[in-house]
């Protein structure tokens, strides 16, 4: 309740007509769903940020002697509410915001931040995006005021298809996805890139289903089976992914599933044994990537917050890179911080993260891993207490996931 109490006080303060003031901390507003159906995702993210700020920044001297703090603002997953919460944050003196869940909310926020900065050049705001992966956010809609620390949909597909290029067992591919922008982008990228890299691979089917509305995936599995596909590519997440995998197991479908989101936030639990040796994921990190510090950090985190599993390495990357940018710029002015972040090359546990200047998209090493029985050796840690964990199949270097950008950035 600490932060809630604080927020109600802050709110009371804003109600008492006090504008923003000077604070002895560097504060970042975390605008994400903290109530409603996606609250678990939002809460896990906020815990991650708080923990990362404490351990990776504040315990190491902070930012120019100041503490880095994250404060939650509940946008309830809604693009409109996101804007109201942005206003609330600005009122309370926040100059940095971060958001990750839902490209809708991210689009809303990037628009609102752009407009706010254009209309209030003396009180600019900077937006750190830690998980919204719509390529247009660093493409057509790219903004000087937005930085993305996660690889976008197309980069991830580039990495996946790079991996598939070398797997000559793949002959027939089926693409299934949720019928909305993300699903469309995944399908489009998969088709284009496979056509380039593996002319011999046949796309034997492509299906889109409405998001969150399919209960029984058996008919889709029957179709995949009938198509004879040995590989399935899906951008599905949440229940749409878990149900798909479960239905595949029920029907005895042996194809491999290449996924974006099988690794976290409840999916391993829901998928359970059904995913064994069939489900692959692409992430910037997972528990069984041998790392110096992150493994310990994750274990401590999981112990401290039972039921919340550390998932986002990029949260740690972002916190450290932002802190370094501020320290380098010797300023907490958003524009100065943005300039310092541009072109930054930062060493993390998995290698180098490069923030490309042209579109503000972070480039980082990525891992393809498969859901396997935890054995204490290569699969040292299981995922979400399921007894199954992720086994690395391939590492995609930072360079291999880079794609040209369509971004034409307006710079202040």
């Amino acid at each position: 309740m600490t932060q809630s109490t604080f927020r109600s006080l802050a709110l009371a303060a804003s109600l008492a007509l006090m504008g923003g003031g000077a604070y002895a901390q560097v504060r970042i507003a975390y605008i994400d769903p903290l109530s409603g159906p996606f609250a678990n995702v939002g809460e896990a993210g906020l815990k991650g940020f708080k923990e990362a700020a404490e351990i990776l920044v504040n315990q190491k001297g902070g930012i120019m002697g100041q503490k880095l703090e994250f404060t939650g603002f509940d946008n309830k997953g809604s693009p409109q509410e996101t804007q109201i919460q942005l206003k609330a944050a600005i009122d309370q003196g926040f100059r940095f915001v971060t958001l990750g869940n839902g490209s809708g909310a991210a689009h809303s926020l990037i628009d609102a931040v752009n407009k706010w900065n254009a209309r209030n050049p003396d009180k600019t705001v900077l937006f750190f995006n830690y998980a919204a992966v719509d390529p247009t956010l660093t493409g057509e809609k790219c903004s000087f005021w937005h930085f993305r620390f996660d690889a976008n949909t197309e980069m991830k597909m580039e990495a996946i298809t790079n991996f598939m290029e070398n797997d000559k067992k793949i002959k027939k591919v089926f693409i299934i996805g949720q019928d909305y922008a993300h699903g469309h982008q995944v399908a489009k990228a998969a088709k284009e890139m496979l056509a380039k890299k593996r002319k011999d691979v046949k796309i034997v089917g492509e299906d889109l289903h409405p998001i969150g509305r399919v209960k029984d995936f058996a008919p889709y599995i029957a179709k995949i089976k009938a198509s004879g596909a040995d590989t399935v590519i899906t951008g599905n997440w949440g229940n749409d992914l878990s149900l798909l995998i479960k239905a595949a197991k029920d029907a005895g479908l042996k194809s491999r599933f290449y996924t974006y989101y099988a690794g976290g936030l409840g999916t391993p639990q829901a998928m359970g044994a059904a995913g064994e040796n069939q489900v692959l994921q692409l992430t910037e990190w997972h528990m069984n990537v041998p790392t110096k510090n992150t493994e310990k950090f994750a274990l401590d985190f999981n112990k401290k917050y039972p039921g919340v599993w550390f998932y986002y390495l990029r949260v740690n990357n972002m916190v450290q890179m932002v802190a370094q940018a501020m320290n380098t710029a010797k300023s907490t002015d958003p524009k100065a911080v943005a300039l310092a972040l541009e072109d930054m090359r930062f060493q993390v546990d998995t290698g180098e993260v490069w923030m490309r200047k042209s579109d503000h998209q972070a480039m980082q090493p990525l891992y393809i891993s498969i859901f396997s029985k935890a054995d204490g050796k290569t699969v040292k840690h299981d995922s979400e207490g399921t007894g199954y964990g992720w086994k690395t199949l391939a590492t995609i270097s930072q360079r291999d996931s880079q794609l040209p950008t369509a971004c034409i950035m307006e710079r202040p």
Partner: protein
Amino acid sequence: MSPAILNRGRLAVWGGCLALALALPLVLKSGFIISLLCQIGIMAVFSLSYNMLLGQTGLLSFGHAVYYGLGAFATMHLLNAIGKGGGPLTTALLPLAGGLAGMVAGVVLGYVTTRKAGTTFAMITLGIGELVAACSLMFPAVFGGEGGVSGNRVVGKEAFLGFTWGPQVEMYGLIVLWAFACTVAMFALTQTPLGRMANAVRDNPERAEFVGYDTERVRFLMVILSGFFAGIAGGLSALNYEIVTAETLNAHTSGIVLLIAFVGGIGFFYGPIIGAILVTVMQIVIGGMTHAWLLYFGLFFLFMVLVAPGGIASLIAVQRNLWQAGLLGRMLPHYLAVTPPVLVLLTGLVGLIELGYALLSGDAGVGAGDTATRVLGMQLHLGAPGPWLTALAITGIGLILTRWIGGRLGVAWNATLATLYGDKA
């Protein structure tokens, strides 16, 4: 009761409200508050349009967001299509396009839905709402997919009378004007033959048929007109947020507008306005204080359904009637007497819920590992039985006291109401 006198009084009330609304930003300068007020204005129009169906025509709709959302998308697309060719004046008039879109949607969908009234109507609107919401995600070219459609409300180089609509406070002024115009129009509609026959159809559709009216036609027209105003509200939201996503037309939005209208009071024209203010403020202020706000909200709603189904407006109206009859004095001591036990009960309940939330969901910022949390500003240890027993005891005491004193309130209430309506009848 000559119409002229009535209108003069009404004119003063309406004018006063408009002046007050326009003057608010002079006092409340916070950007957050202005955003909140904008939201309230939009929701007021939206929920008033909803009440044209529920309160005035007796049609319970679970798909009203369709009109709102389509209005918003139409406005946004038009805004983008006009682009640089427009100016602040055209922008200010754009919500009208949203209204027309809502109206067209009303013609198409109303044709199907208004064949039935009552529960069947409710189910059909639910189904149609789902259908439209599902389809909206399938056509990214129209609905913008997950990212929605965004635009810039500042168009053209010249200001119109000094307004560009860029600053939020200018947008607020625009919303107030539109909301006021819509409210006047919707009120005027209640005073027309169609508006009155809508009431008649609500009260007794069979009788309405036997005085010459086609009830299906009355419902159909009301859906179309209601779609028009919902569309305007949608258009305002498009201009205000400068982004429209598929969420604006889904079941959640439909549910919220129902909540607002009901909590405010569907039996009174101004009920939904009260609802819009109350619900928006609750959502944002209580939502800012606790993550359990949805639960509080649901419980509050259930409480309203069971105890005050006429909504806040009906509670106000009854008090006013009591006041006019000189009976309010009889009830006041009871109200005062029941307040402390209710507060005790609420404290206990809130304590229990917050403890539960902190323990079971692990509130943000506090790990369940250290099992310490702050409830109502107190540092508590969740593992120990102390806080739980205290909260339970407070709830119990509150419950007993509320039942006891509330019972006496109930007796007095019934007696007073009997006097009030007994005199009248």
